[in-house]
């Protein structure tokens, strides 16, 4: 550990903690504080929003895509070495959840439907269980709403359910 600190710090100590305003070759522009620079991978780790609470935006930026940057100031090393720990289990859980969420979200997006249809779907989904069957919105597994998604296109289901969906559409 010690060796590593010594070796890296010669160059990077200066950079770590620097506030920079960076423009990338792709046209992004942002301000951030250097968390670290990793020479082998050529990646600069920046954090933004460090003024607002503990949550930050992290950017990992390849330095060769930096068009230019301005030095704004110097601050402390943003990584408090005494404060870094990782809970792998928690990370795993988080990822798992995130993926599940993403899957659920993906299901909610109709494929090949208009934005209007999607917004109707979203509106319906706030109160009723809905899903896509191709481009048809299926409400409560019985009422089907096809294009053009108006009250005439509400088909099927019990009369009560049908009426309810019609009203909503």
């Amino acid at each position: 550990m010690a060796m590593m600190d010594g070796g890296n710090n010669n160059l990077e100590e200066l950079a770590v903690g620097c506030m920079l305003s960076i423009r990338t070759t792709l046209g992004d522009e942002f301000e951030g504080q250097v968390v670290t620079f990793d020479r082998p991978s050529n990646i600069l780790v920046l954090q933004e929003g460090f003024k607002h609470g503990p949550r930050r935006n992290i950017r990992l930026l390849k330095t060769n895509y930096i068009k230019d940057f301005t030095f704004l100031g110097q601050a402390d090393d943003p990584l408090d070495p005494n404060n870094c720990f990782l809970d792998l289990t928690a990370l795993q859980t988080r990822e798992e959840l995130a993926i599940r969420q993403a899957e659920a979200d993906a299901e909610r997006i109709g494929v090949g439907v208009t934005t209007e249809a999607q917004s109707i779907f979203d509106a319906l989904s706030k109160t009723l269980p809905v899903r896509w069957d191709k481009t048809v919105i299926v409400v409560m597994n019985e009422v089907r709403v096809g294009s053009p998604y108006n009250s005439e296109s509400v088909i099927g289901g019990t009369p009560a359910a049908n009426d309810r969906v019609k009203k909503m559409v």
Partner: protein
Amino acid sequence: MLTEDHSESMSDALLFTTICIIGLPVDVHVRDGSVYSGIFHAASVDADYGVVLKKARMTKKGMFDTNVGTEVVVDTLVILANDLVQIVTKGVMLDGGNVSRYDEEAVTCEVENHIGSLVDAKQDNQSRSPIQMENGFAHGFPRSIAVNEHEGKKLPVNHMRTSLELDCGKTNKKDFTKIEVDSASSFNDRQPGHDKSKGKADDCRQKPAVVKGKIDEKIQRLNSSHGIDTDLIQVEAVEHVSTYMISNTSDNGLSCDNDAASVKLDDRCSERSTLTDSASTNSIQGVDLISESHNLQPKSVEISTPRGTGSTRNAKEFKLNPAAKIFSPSFLHPSSITAAVPTSPNMVYVPNSSPSVSFTAIQPQVEFSTFVSRPPLPVKIADYSNVGVGNGGSGSQLSQPIIGQLAHRTQPLRYTAHYTPDLSEPAYLQTSSPAVMVGRSGQLVYVHPVSHELVHGATTISPVSARPMSNHVQFPKQQGKKSMK
């Protein structure tokens, strides 16, 4: 030791940051200006920093055309270091709790120790413990571990711990990628079986090829010009979705067959069951399957020889024909279906029949052909139609192959085409019984009666007699099906 590892690959801080953003939604900007949003899943940290996203979507179209559509959600997206411009993550907590610096190091160290390189895992046996760790870590799926360590015995209680310790025992691995991989997603469920099978089947040469092929098909990589980063891709492949895993496993299993070692076969058997099980995602069943596969081992041994040849062919098909992945979905279905069916009507059914079902489900084709070609088989079957008598006369071995066959019988649900050869066996035709009619209306319906009868056989009779029983029962139905056709 740790220090050296780090200095070769990446700095502590980058490593730390990388781990911090695992599982978070990130936007990855790539060279052509397009932006992909997904869940940060893994990174390669050997010199080049490539990343793997899950559930990635292109949120901004870049200058170049890619093979990733704007509408599509890519399950696993590999972005190679050359393409990578920047990764943006919102709302990260970089600071943890009040843990000392030493602890941080310890954690990192631990992580490294725990994790074996997946890539390595693929290529040799040493992979086992990391894999186990994945299981334990990711989901604590008892069954996978049970299979790993006990080969079909009941699960260890504290599997998670066990795996962890195992990993700790391993030598230090530098590959950071492993970490993320281990931390991976729900899809990791399938890895265990997959990897394990690899580990066991040391001699499966086809695997790399298979893996590659899959990668080509499944992994959507950016369309850029560079060659494939093997590490990343392999990692990816490992993490693939169920379909993959299943097809993959079948591949592995098949290649294992080449070896024709009966022991391996047994392993495979249990592996298969695990796999199937994971496909159905029913942990209880999983246990049953595993134990079951154990019981069946003698049978599988018997079967091994015939299967070898056909399996090779099958494996080749996979290799040569990328489109062979078409198989995987269909494989998946039967397996999950067969596995699922027992669950609802009666669990008892599972132990007795599912193992055979499961492994046949995975490679129905091969087995069909081999079986048909086997002269002795029809004879045995004829005996069976006489129920217990036949069984006793032909000996225990006979019953086993038949079970294998039985399993195939169930298979026809899907592979009707393959089924036809079976008709050539006269014994079947003779066996037809009233029960046959019951099942005719639909395939699923047909399954139900089978399971019921199986239950009887399973519960009342000792293993030896139970098998013939169930066989006998099942035959009529199959028969019915055939005659329907």
